[in-house]
Every structure is written in C-alpha cells, then in structure tokens.
C-alpha cells in the first residue's frame, strides 16, 4: 500500500522521521505566522497537574453523593454493594398523618449513612439500584486524605457532594430515553 513508483526509504530512516516530526510538533505547535516560537507546554500532551487540571466527562465516576431527604433506609444499596462498604443505620419513627383525621404513618429515619471509599470499587451498583433517587455520581476526584480513616465519608459529607453533581446530559439521536432530573 502507499507509494507506487517512488523508491521506498529504508524503514530506519522513516522511523527517524517520525520521531523528529513529533519533536518539532511538540516544540513548535503553532501553525501560521507564529510557527517558529517554541511553546512546548502547549505542544506536549502533558497536563501539568496541579497547575492545570483536566475536567472529566459528566458521567465520570468520581464520588457518590447522597440526597438525604430521598432516602427511606430500604437498605438496597448496602445489600447490593459487592464490597459491603456502605454502613446504614436507621430507626422507625412516626410522622403526622397526610390528611387530618388519618392514621399516623411510620417512616424510616436515617441515623447513619457512611460510605467507606477505601473499600469502594466505584462500580455504581448502589446508585443504580436505589429506587428513590437518593444516590448520584459526581465527577469530583480530588478527595485524597492523609489518613485511611478519613476516607470514610459520613452523611454530612456525602450531602455536600450533591453540589458537585452535574445535570444529566441529553442523549444521542435515536435514543428513547429521557434524561432524568437531579433533585437540588
């Protein structure tokens, strides 16, 4: 394939050409008038973290956020976690009846909802099985800690992650799904 009548360069020479071309593209990335100004920081693919940061896509599985109001302590997420890293405690309480003159309802109140990110394998099964839209993915990834115990995020911290949850994007043409809404 390729060159028909031109004599072929030996492969060793072509290889040198490839590396030289990459080097010049990295050092002189600008096209047009500014070609000869060296600018390797722009030409290289390196993202100089922490000075520059990449934004991951919207669906990226960074951290799990909890909307406490929606949680009914059904325990489905804790049961389906492959690593058993979700710790839930709740108690039953009575709430006033919906209509005056009705029966008082029993509701579950959430006491403790911890996710241990040292164990979490970021599979997303908990987010998927939650029937009440209480768990959401957020692409936030900068939560490294100095101590392992600090990777256990409690209810308040998980609620704070809700601010980092992006809205669901629209789907590609031909899809029959409608994007869900994130409760704010």
């Amino acid at each position, binding site marked *: 394939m390729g060159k028909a009548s031109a004599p072929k360069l030996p492969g060793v020479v072509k290889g040198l050409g490839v590396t*030289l071309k*990459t080097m010049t593209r990295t050092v002189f990335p600008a096209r047009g008038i500014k070609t000869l100004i060296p600018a390797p920081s722009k030409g*290289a693919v*390196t993202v100089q973290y922490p000075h520059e940061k990449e934004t991951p896509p919207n669906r990226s599985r960074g951290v799990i956020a909890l909307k406490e109001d929606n949680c009914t302590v059904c325990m489905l997420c804790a049961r389906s976690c492959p690593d058993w890293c979700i710790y839930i405690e709740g108690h039953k309480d009575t709430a006033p009846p919906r209509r005056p003159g009705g029966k008082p309802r029993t509701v579950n109140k959430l006491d403790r909802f911890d996710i241990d990110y040292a164990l979490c394998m970021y599979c997303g099964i908990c987010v998927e099985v939650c029937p009440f839209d209480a768990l959401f993915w957020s692409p936030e990834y900068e939560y490294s800690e100095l101590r392992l115990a600090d990777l256990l995020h409690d209810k308040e911290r998980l609620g704070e992650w809700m601010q980092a949850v992006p809205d669901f994007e629209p789907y590609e043409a031909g899809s029959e799904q409608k994007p869900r809404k994130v409760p704010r």
Partner: protein
Amino acid sequence: MSTLTTLAADIELAWWQQTTLRSLGVMIAVLIPAGTLVYVFLFKMMSFMQSRLGPMEAGPYGSLQLLAEVGKFIQKEDIIPWRADRKLFAFAPYVVIASVFMIYLVVPFGPDAYFVDFDTGIFWALAVSSVSVLGILIAGWSSANKYSLLGGLRAAGQLIAYELPMVLAVVGVVIQAGTLNMQGIVAAQAEGEIFGFGGIGNPFVLTQGIGFLIFLIAMQAELTQTPFDMPIAESELVSGYMTEYSGLRFLLFFIGEFASAGAFAAVAATLFLGGWAIPGVDLDADWMNVVGPLVLVAKMMLVAFLVFWVRFTYPRFREDQLQQLAWKILIPLSLVNILATMALKVAF
C-alpha cells in the same frame, strides 16, 4: 606565543597547585558536558520526541533536576549484595569513570586550552576508552547476579568487537591529516582546502563521510546505547551490569555513561567536524581560547543529538546480529574506506 602562557609563566605555581587546578579543570570539563547532555537530551529531547514535557518542577523548566537527582543518589544507602565480591564491586565504577576522564585529557578546547598535548593524541584516546570494558566486566562479574553476569559478558563481546571499526575509521582521518596529534588534526581541517576552495576549510566529514558514519555507529555501540544496548537491555536484564548498583555507585555509572557520550562526541567533533576551530579565523588567536570551547561544545551537541536521536527511535539488536554487523559489514567497509583514502591521498 600568547598572553596566556606569559601570564602562566609569571605566576609561579608549585607542582601540586598546578595539579589541583588541572584536576579541577578536568572535573568541570567532564561534568558540565555530561550534565548538559543529560538535561538537554535525556530529559528534554526525549520528552519532546514522546509528546511530553519531561521534568518541569525542579528549577525553571526542570533545569535543576539533575542536581536534585545527584543529591538523591548521594544520600542513599550503600547496598552491596551479600554474596558479591566487595572490593571488586566497589572498584568497578571508578575504572569506568577513570577511563572517561582520561579521554577528555587529550581533547583540545582551544589553541592553548588543552590538558595534555600528546603527539599520539588520538591513539591515546582510543586506547584508554577500552579500559571501560574492564570496568563493565568487573561490575557484571562481582555483582553475584545472573542478570549482571549476562550483561557483563554481552558488553565484553560487543565493546571489543566495535573497537575495530572505530579505530579503522579513525585511520582514514589520520591518513588524510597526516598526524596523530589532535591539535594537528584540527589545524589540518581548518587550514585545508577542498580542490582549491578554502572557504570552509576541509572538515573531514565531507571527504571521510563513510568514515564518519562508521565512527558514529561504532560510537553508539561503544556507549552501549540503543540499538546496541544489549548489555543493559532494560526489558530483559533489568539494568544489565548495573543492576545491583544503587546510590553513589549507580550515579558514577550514570555520569560515566553521559560523560563518555560527551567524550566521544568531542572526539568525533574534533576528528570530523573541525574541532574548536572556525574556518577563516586565525588559529593562534587568544580569544579563541574562550570561543573555542563554545564552538567545540556546539559541535559536540550536534553529534550527541544524532546519537540520542537514534537511541530513542530504534529497537535493539540481538547479540549475534550485533556481532554480525560489526564483523561482516562495518570492518570490511572501513577497510575499503582506508584503501580509498590512501589511493586518493597519493593521487591528489
């Protein structure tokens, strides 16, 4: 002669003072090119060829990274394998470093800026560069590690095999220059003429093009750089003969590798590219003692660019293919080159 020697004659230095100055001078002359080569080629050029940036944090644009690495290596624990031969293990890096330093002794940096001016300068350089083979063998053997042993044996075979094409390529230059003296070779190129045209002198890269190519290939093999880095062969032998070395001893090998790259580049620049001289400039001028080293360093970087460009692009040869290349292709080619040079020298 020049003001520099009259100046030196005025200041009466004792022998030990002169020696100390000379030793310091050699250290600077060796370590600065080595450091520059490491930074420009290993850290930056390699990174740019791979679409990345290389070290950027230590110092502006990562220029102090080598200092940081030196500091890191110096403060590391001195680990000697339990079954290794302790004395030989400690001795090996110094053999390699010594051989590299001795090459720099005969490279002229200017009309008076040289360390020693032997009449057989280039002969000394080639002879002394073979001493590093011993160092590598000692390192490979004394490490008590099978990978090191394999690396050391491969190195012995390879480095001895590629001595010959290098020497034969230099013979062509010597025939054309008419002298073994390094300053004489520089003068022959600066004052020579190509068929009567004296504008650019007579850099031997033009008339000894094949010799230059052979010298470059042999140089690549002598430096154990890819495609001839079987002794190191990172993906097979971890680090070859250097595997068990850590800390300061590894640093000595590392600096030795790049210092010898600089040394051979300097020798190649002197033999083929004209050395410290600029054609058209008076060879005895005083200010050439300052400009000469810069010119030589620039030519060294050009040669080193070729060496490292090839290093970062090609895969490596297998040992037997390597030996075949040396014995069956390079040596006959260099012999033909010598014959042609002799014939043309007599004819013209």
